[in-house]
């Protein structure tokens, strides 16, 4: 079974915005363990930066690896009508990367991915963002039923890196994908990093852990 959760009209920041309703929607969403979560706008009422930051803080708590977020025509009707953007990208400052070896600007899905990119860049380790999609399952006529694009590839190490913001207990589906990948492509090296690992990589707490 494939579960899709759709949420809409968050309208963070409006005077009628009631946090307890969104809190409840988030916990119900997480209980469903969806494959995809679609947030189909509007994220904010007026499109102010702190409204987006508020929306980001709520959406960061949704435990799903695949989120499609359409900010919505309402707050963005002037600047970006109908555009699909990475909602995270929209509310974050993306630096100029030195060790990035791709061409198109990477579209990070969340803060953990951005943090990972920053750390790799800091240490001058060349990296690519989602350069490869591995087919995991096809039907008899060769139509792709399941595929997987690991978040990072380190060309010098020939290593893929998948970042998950899910809790360790909710990561069974991702682990199943990784297992499939390893079975089908035994030569591919891939590591799974949790959000916690990235925070430690970035020494967010000022602790010497990422030696």
């Amino acid at each position, binding site marked *: 079974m494939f579960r899709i959760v759709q949420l809409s009209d968050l309208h963070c920041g409006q005077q009628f915005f009631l946090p307890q309703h969104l809190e409840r929607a988030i916990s119900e969403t997480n209980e469903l363990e969806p494959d995809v979560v679609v947030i189909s706008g509007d994220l904010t009422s007026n499109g102010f930066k702190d409204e987006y930051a508020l929306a980001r803080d709520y959406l960061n708590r949704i435990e799903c690896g695949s989120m499609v977020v359409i900010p919505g025509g309402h707050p963005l009707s002037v600047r970006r009508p109908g555009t699909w953007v990475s909602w995270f990208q929209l509310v974050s*400052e993306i*630096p100029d990367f*030195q060790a990035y070896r791709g061409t198109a600007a990477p579209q990070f899905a969340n803060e953990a991915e951005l*943090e990972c990119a*920053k*750390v*790799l*860049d*800091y*240490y*001058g*380790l060349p990296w690519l963002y989602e350069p490869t999609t591995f087919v995991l399952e096809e039907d008899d006529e060769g139509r792709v039923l399941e595929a997987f694009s690991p978040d990072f590839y*380190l060309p010098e*190490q020939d*290593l893929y*890196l998948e970042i998950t913001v899910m809790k360790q207990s909710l990561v069974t589906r991702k682990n199943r994908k990784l297992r499939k990948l390893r079975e089908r492509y035994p030569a591919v090296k891939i*590591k799974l990093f949790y959000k916690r*690992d990235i925070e430690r*990589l*970035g*020494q*967010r*707490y*000022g*602790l*010497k*852990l*990422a*030696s």
Partner: protein
Amino acid sequence: MGVGEIYLSAEQIATRVAELGEEITADYAGKEPLLVGALKASFVFLADLTRALPFLHHVDFVELAGYTSDETGGTPAVRLIKDLDASIEGRDVLLVEDIVDTGLTLHYLVRTFRLRSPHSLEVVTLLDRPYRRLVEDIPVRYVGFTVPDEFFVGYGFDQAEQFRGLPDLWIVRGSPVV
């Protein structure tokens, strides 16, 4: 003081450092290596290791600017804030690390030092977390202890600059708070 429990006692560490000293002494027979400590946490290990090597060797230190995600005070790329005092061209260099984890910082040091044409370049680390490695091509030749995915203080390791002077190695329990 609330740091948790002792993971390795001072005696256990001393025993292992003596063993490492014997191995290194045998491997570097007839040579006069340069031990390079990567500051800060390695200073206690290096102090013990140098006294476990009963042959001529030299000691130097480097220090790297640590990564910070703080956008105001951070530097855009890793760099040495304290470099070696002398040239290592033609020398036998043994890098002394407190812990090797992802390998990112060590990888940078190794890359930097290889450009200076040492005769040999090896690494000794007190602690190792090989399962967290992102970079494999680093010459970790001597490992004191392979350790679990925990946060340690004591024996040079700190939590916000505290606890470096504890003689034993402690595990910090609970989520790290600064």
